[in-house]
């Protein structure tokens, strides 16, 4: 007790004794309670990345097209013709566990503000969702979907893609990761650097309340029996207000006197001011009494730590204050000068002229001691024995009706995915395609992960996440450009969890280097555990942006014309480990996940891109979970055309089950008219890619003679009902 603070007080601000002592050493005095609260939130795992930042440095983050890498509100990539695409993924897991609708809604709101802060207009949202099994998780699942929709729909930003998985490990700690993509002219790209001493700090949007205090700290703890009591730490969203903020900020894009835009998210004003000033190498002085409030009697501590939603901070030149304020007023938004930029790199907080906090900025933003956690590999995954099913048609039907493989239409129809008049490829295929108006360019957008593979082998699983996201992008005819990663893991203080994180980051890094994809932004969410269900599966989520130079050459997953040749690209191996077949049919999660050959993967991508650019293909679809037959069925269902194939004669060692259901990587289902077959075959030889003829498009069945025969109508009914309440009882 020599430092006069007990463990309970430290736990309140989520600081360790060692961290507290480091603070006292640097300051040469004990911090007061306001300072302690500010340090607590900024040193939380959520804000400081103290456990993960050593690992994150390993990710490649540069490349010819990168305009902005990690460290800003979002990453940015040059897509040509003067346009920059801005994007980032962010998690809102703990708030969504406690209050699913608002947690998900405000998660969307937060990531949208990150994109606005770069000066970009948000043009698309994607979401990656994970829950415990149905029917138990139905309330959470439906509330999160409604929350995501409520926010994006009201703001008029299309939700164009996403992914959804169910697994017991998420039963106590669902995952809600949202990705926002924005567009801005390259020369209008903003950086949140509060430069120029004497410039004013303008706080805009919602008045500040007591909501969300300690949200960042809360995100850095495991969920326990008391988490429900933290419900007040979850904020309530007001998408209408954020829409007004968006339009006002767009009106001010490129306006004279606007020095910086910064979102207020986790750790509220403290984090926003500290980061914006720190990036500029300047400091800031805040007068908390000038912050508009929605509640009476708030202390400086509460004002500095509030996570009230729908707020932005601007640094503006005093000469232009009135014009800038007038823009906000036209949108009926309150804009208050709450402080100023100062030369000295400190954050000073005043209330009614009395100083109540004064801290060096580098202590706040970079002072948190990096934690070097112990890592230990767990026992290798269990082995399995393949049970040989007889009826392949029955297996296909069970797979297509299972919650992880069935149609997501009932989800994405709740999201406005068309507003903006730019969505060329709607959700339900591989990647969504969004055009850039007034150009021939289009963006391909996807978000992907496969936590089951990562649970079996996080290094390989993370590589697969990158490879599969890239395949999604390639399948629509787009070249992958860059990545944003959302790393969702359990408590890293446990060596086997830290090992997962270490392995996954190494896997992402290896795959991104091999495929030449910079990671330009990202998010880390740790402590995703619950008392009842333990740690979540390691879940590195990969958001990816790709580019099509000529949008008219885009491809879709559905078969297009009767009589077209249907082909399988890439090699199938006897790789049933971690497969959907194993889980759905045998109830097992075991074995090593499929291997990744990044050179073969890349060759397949180049082949598809060349074929797409030459107009040789009619459709392309990524082969992923469920294997070849599931991908083929999806192509048939999405196109409304059946496929007729002669009996599959797998190579010697490969049995029929792996031939149909193995989840070998680097594969696509493509279709092409007969006249382009010679060109396609020579292209395949040139790229050293295996292409196997499966059969012909046509009819209303999926058929391999003597092996599989299922009517499209019957399959569609099962596939589309997979998430409906009655069908999941007892799942």
């Amino acid at each position, binding site marked *: 007790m020599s430092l006069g603070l007990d463990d309970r007080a430290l736990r309140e601000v989520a600081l360790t004794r060692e961290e507290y002592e480091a603070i006292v050493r640097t300051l040469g005095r004990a911090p007061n309670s306001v300072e302690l609260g500010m340090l607590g939130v900024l040193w939380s795992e959520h804000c400081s990345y103290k456990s993960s930042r050593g690992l994150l440095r390993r990710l490649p983050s540069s490349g010819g097209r990168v305009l902005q890498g990690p460290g800003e509100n979002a990453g940015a990539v040059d897509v040509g013709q003067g346009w920059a695409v801005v994007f980032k993924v962010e998690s809102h897991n703990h708030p969504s566990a406690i209050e699913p609708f608002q947690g998900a809604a405000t998660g969307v709101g937060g990531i949208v503000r990150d994109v606005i802060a770069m000066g970009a207009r948000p043009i698309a949202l994607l979401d990656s969702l994970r829950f415990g099994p149905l029917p138990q998780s139905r309330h959470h699942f439906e509330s999160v979907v*409604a929350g995501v*929709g*409520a926010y994006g*729909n*009201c*703001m*008029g930003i299309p939700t164009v893609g996403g992914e959804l998985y169910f697994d017991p490990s998420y039963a106590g700690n669902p995952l809600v990761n949202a990705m926002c993509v924005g567009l801005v002219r390259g020369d209008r790209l903003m950086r949140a650097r509060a430069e120029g001493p004497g410039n004013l700090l303008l706080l805009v949007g919602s008045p500040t309340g007591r909501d969300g205090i300690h949200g960042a700290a809360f995100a850095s703890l495991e969920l326990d029996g008391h988490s429900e009591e933290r419900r007040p730490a979850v904020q309530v969203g*007001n*998408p*209408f*207000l954020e*829409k*007004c903020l968006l*339009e006002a900020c767009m009106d001010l894009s490129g306006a004279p006197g606007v020095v910086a835009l910064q979102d207020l998210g986790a750790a509220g004003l403290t984090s926003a001011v500290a980061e914006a000033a720190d990036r500029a190498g300047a400091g800031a002085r805040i007068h908390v009494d000038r912050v508009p409030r929605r509640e009476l009697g708030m202390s400086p501590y509460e004002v500095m730590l509030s996570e009230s939603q729908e707020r932005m901070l601007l640094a503006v030149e005093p000469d232009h204050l009135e014009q800038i304020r007038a823009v906000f007023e036209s*949108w*009926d938004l309150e804009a208050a000068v709450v402080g100023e930029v100062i030369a000295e790199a400190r954050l000073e907080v005043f209330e009614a002229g009395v100083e109540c906090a004064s801290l060096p900025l580098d202590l706040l933003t970079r002072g948190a001691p990096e934690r070097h956690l112990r890592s230990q590999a767990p026992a290798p995954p269990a082995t399995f024995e393949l049970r040989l099913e007889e009826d392949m048609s029955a297996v296909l039907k069970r797979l297509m009706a299972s919650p992880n493989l069935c149609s997501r239409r009932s989800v*994405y*129809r*709740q*999201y*406005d*995915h*068309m*507003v*903006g*008049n730019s*969505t*060329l490829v*709607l959700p339900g295929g591989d990647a969504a395609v969004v*055009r850039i*108006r*007034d150009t021939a360019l289009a963006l391909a957008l996807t978000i992907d992960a496969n936590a089951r593979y990562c649970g079996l082998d996080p290094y390989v699983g993370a590589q697969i996440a990158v490879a599969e996201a890239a395949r999604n992008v390639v399948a629509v005819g787009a070249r992958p450009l860059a990545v944003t990663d959302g790393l969702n893991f359990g408590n890293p203080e446990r060596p086997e969890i830290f090992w997962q994180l270490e392995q996954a980051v190494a896997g992402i890094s290896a795959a991104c280097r091999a495929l030449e994809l910079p990671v330009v932004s990202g998010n880390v969410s740790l402590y995703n555990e619950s008392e009842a269900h333990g740690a979540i599966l390691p879940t590195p989520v990969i958001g990816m942006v790709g580019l099509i130079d000529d*949008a*008219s050459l885009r491809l879709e997953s559905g078969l297009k014309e009767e009589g077209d040749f249907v082909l399988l690209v890439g090699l199938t191996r006897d790789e049933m480990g971690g497969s959907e077949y194993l889980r759905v049919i045998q109830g097992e999660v075991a074995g090593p996940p499929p291997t990744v050959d990044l050179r073969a993967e890349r060759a397949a991508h180049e082949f598809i891109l060349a074929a797409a650019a030459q107009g040789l293909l009619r459709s392309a679809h990524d082969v992923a979970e469920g294997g070849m037959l599931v991908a083929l069925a999806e192509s048939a269902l999405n196109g409304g055309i059946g496929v007729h194939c002669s009996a599959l004669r797998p190579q010697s060692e490969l049995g029929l089950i792996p031939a149909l259901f193995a989840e070998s990587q680097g594969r696509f289902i493509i279709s092409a008219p007969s006249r382009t077959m010679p060109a396609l075959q020579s292209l395949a030889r040139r790229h050293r890619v295996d292409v196997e003829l499966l059969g012909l498009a046509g009819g209303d069945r999926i058929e391999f003679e003597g092996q599989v025969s299922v009517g499209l109508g019957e399959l569609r009914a099962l596939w589309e009902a997979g998430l409906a309440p009655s069908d999941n009882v007892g799942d």
Partner: protein
Amino acid sequence: MKFGVVVFPGTWSDKDFGWVIDRVLGQELRYLWHKDPDLHGVDCVVIPGGFAHGDYLRCGAIARFSPVMESVRSFADRGGLVWGSCNGFQILCESGLLPGALLPNEGSRFICEWTHLVCERTDLAFTRQFQDRPVVRLPISHGQGNYFADPATLSRLEQAGQVVFRYSDAEGRVEARSNPNGSVHNIAGLVNARGNVLGMMPHPERCAEAELGGEDGRSMFQSLIEWGLEVLTA
């Protein structure tokens, strides 16, 4: 043809309408800010989709009191063309320019998808290009598009032939199965007695270009342009 597109702070289909009017069809475009009562001499007022004022209370309930709506009302009274889509339809009902109300969708979920519609009035300035087209295809995107009117109003509307669009299947059969949101009589759009104020839940501006999946919406804009050429220059 000079189109005026009304903009409330929470409107989002304004830019999509603007894109079609200006860039796709090369017509004159003027955005009409909700605080400004001046309609700037437009020939047709468009009230687009969105959440005008957040619509946390009831869709369009606040928008009806805005300065621009006063002018829209007198413009409509003088026979001016007023075209509301989605939130615009909700606002027209709240303003009393069209009868009835739009309730939360049956099943209370937001729905975004393509729908088939039968058009029962092809004599209007908005729909003349739908002649000889038994079924048209336009997308919807709303949480509150469940049209309701009391039985007396409904029978008056039906008798006067004011129902313009009904949800149907691809063959034009109007059945409960093809009703996405629970609207009475599958009503997706209606017109006032005089024929100059049209409200509809579907989004014509989202299907004015082939690459967005359909062009039936474009026909509505072209109907208006054609009408404008005949009537306004006459």
